[in-house]
């Protein structure tokens, strides 16, 4: 079979102006470099293409043109007797989101798979322009409801950096609390979806129940199960008193114990482990070549985590474990997430322990790229999330983002080559994708 061929796209521009902190932490080979071309109203934040594959993945992540359905991974020229394209989606219960997968196949074997996005574009990038930052945040948190804390944190960080605003220390703690709770929820959700695909009904029910518990904790602390509005000024989490924090900490302790028991049961289930072991493998060099981020990258043996590498408040002040696995398969991705659930419980404990109250000092303003423009970068549940925001007189002027799903689509497509279609759900769910944040 031939290797995927790239669609011809304009060559990416040279690494442009400095991107502040975002650039400062880039490893020498440039694999996480960000560049931006703000010319002609088009802007992308893209990992620099590694070496010779210069026109490769980067070109695919551009957001040129209207958001009509578009390929999110390289299309391949696979042809032969009996080979056809099987479109899966955008309406299906298997993937309960509007997105399509074009599968080239002659039956069971997947010769090539192309995720197609753009079905649920709510035109958020355009809709925020001209709105005050705090109103724009209402749309940003709905970019992907299950990742709202990460999206809002990254957006606000970028906007604050653009306006050179100091960050009250308490805000940092609130954002950390929200992000870690939501990370645990999302990791549990991924484990539940994989368990569902593997017909692990007891494990599924238990994981679902734990995830629901997390939503209820979020509802109790932030007043909203999905943290909408929670990170904007004045949300209820800022009134967490000592007694509230102790109660919350106890509740999280119980949930952590329940999770330990549950995860051991999963690991003891041979059917579960066998089914996801060696499914959709992405080895270390492939993960780097395709620009994988988050648990997907760490499951391929690269210990990169924004919380550690690009420390913003509160993570600059916390112990952040970065679990990673060498396997690169669906099992490794699920196991990495399980380890991260443990890590997040540990981080939450630190946050609640060292919580400051209002007036407890402030963090210096993040350096802005150029006046009026800032980069915000956080480790979302599915990986590195970057916002590039321009602000004029308190209103959003332009906004671009690179979501972890966007970065990981080509990795998924690469891993699915030569798989069988029954692998699809195990593979797909192990990445923790959201078409919502890709489409925006």
């Amino acid at each position, binding site marked *: 079979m031939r290797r995927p061929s790239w669609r011809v796209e304009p060559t990416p521009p040279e690494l442009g102006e400095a991107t502040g902190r975002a650039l400062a932490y880039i490893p020498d080979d440039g694999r996480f470099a960000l560049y931006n071309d703000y010319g002609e109203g088009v802007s992308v934040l893209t990992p620099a293409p590694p070496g010779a594959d210069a026109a490769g993945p980067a070109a695919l992540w551009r957001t040129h043109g209207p*958001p*009509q*359905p578009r390929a999110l991974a390289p299309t391949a020229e696979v042809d032969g007797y009996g080979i056809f394209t099987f479109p899966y989606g*955008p*309406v*299906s*219960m*298997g993937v*309960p*989101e*509007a997105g399509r997968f074009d599968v080239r196949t002659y039956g069971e074997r997947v010769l090539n798979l192309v995720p197609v996005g*753009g*079905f*649920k*574009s*709510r*035109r*958020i990038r*355009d*809709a925020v322009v001209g709105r005050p930052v705090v*109103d724009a945040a*209402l*749309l940003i948190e*709905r*970019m*992907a*409801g*299950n990742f*709202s804390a990460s999206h809002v944190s990254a957006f606000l960080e970028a906007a604050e950096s653009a306006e050179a605003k100091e960050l009250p220390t308490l805000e940092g703690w609130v954002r950390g609390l929200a992000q870690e709770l939501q990370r645990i929820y999302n990791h549990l*959700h991924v484990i539940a979806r994989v368990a569902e695909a593997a017909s692990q009904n007891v494990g599924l*029910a*238990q994981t*679902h*129940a734990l*995830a*629901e518990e997390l*939503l*209820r904790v979020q*509802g*109790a602390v932030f*007043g*909203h*199960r*999905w943290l*909408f*509005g929670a990170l904007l000024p004045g*949300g209820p989490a800022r009134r967490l008193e000592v007694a509230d924090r102790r109660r919350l900490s106890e509740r999280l302790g119980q949930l952590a114990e*329940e999770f330990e*028991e*549950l995860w051991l*049961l999963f690991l003891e289930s041979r059917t579960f482990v066998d089914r996801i072991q060696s499914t959709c493998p992405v080895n270390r060099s492939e993960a780097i070549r395709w620009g994988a981020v988050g648990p997907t990258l760490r499951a391929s043996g690269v210990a990169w985590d924004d919380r550690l590498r690009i420390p913003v408040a509160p993570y600059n002040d916390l112990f952040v474990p970065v679990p990673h696995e060498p396997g690169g398969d669906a099992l490794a991705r699920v196991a990495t997430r399980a380890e991260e659930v443990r890590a997040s419980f540990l981080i939450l404990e630190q946050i609640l322990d060292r919580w400051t109250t209002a007036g407890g000092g402030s963090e210096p303003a993040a350096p802005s790229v150029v006046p009026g423009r800032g980069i915000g970068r956080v480790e979302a549940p599915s990986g590195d999330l970057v916002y590039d925001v321009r602000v004029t007189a308190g209103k959003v002027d332009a906004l671009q983002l690179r979501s972890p799903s966007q970065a990981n689509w080509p990795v998924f497509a690469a891993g699915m080559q030569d798989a069988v279609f029954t692998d699809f759900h195990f593979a797909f769910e192990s990445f923790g994708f*959201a078409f*919502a944040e890709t489409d925006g």
Partner: protein
Amino acid sequence: MSRGILTSRYPREPASDEEVPSTGRPPIPVAGPASLPSAQGSCPVRAISETVVDQGKCIRCARCLAAGLSFSGTVEAATRSRADLLRISDGRAPSPASPPPLVTLGRSLHLFLIDVGSCNACNLEVLALANPYYDAQRLGLFFTNSPRHADVLLVVGVPTPEMAEPLRRAYDALPHPKAVVAVGACPISGGAFAGTAGLAGSLEEIVPVDVFVPGCPPAPIAILDALLKLHGRDRGTRGGR
């Protein structure tokens, strides 16, 4: 591993505070509609008018709390008509013209979830109905894998031009009798995206809607209430007790 019975007592008993966080309930003017004119400016989606709160527009952002509203409405706020969503804030009963329940659908409902441009929160709240806390199967509510096997289309998200046609086709694929539930502010009014250029308009302009569930997103209990109302089995009727 035994954790006892987790399942909600709803609808036999009212929803608990744990099941419904504050933003799960519709905002209501504490001092009556007289305070609404002064609260109008606080609403980013213009859900508050001089006399009523349009629950179909409200995205539960909590900005009106400082202007004299509170999240104290009933979580059972789903209505059979769009106009009834304007009656929740002042405690008026749903209009008598509300269409009667679709009893022709038999004893159980088969549900198909279709996403036409959502942020995923509504998708996940709908899917949460299958978790042990809500266990929708105990009420005869089942998810199907194809619109061909479904009685009810649960629509989440604000319709995008790309999804208008797939939505129409899914609706046509449902066998008769069929019903459509608009889950959340997005399909009802556009929600946070109301007024955004380039979207396909409200759900009602594309397919007929039978039940409107306000919220952003609606709590799973609110979605249960909507489905039971559609079926004439909600807490307001004999079937719900």
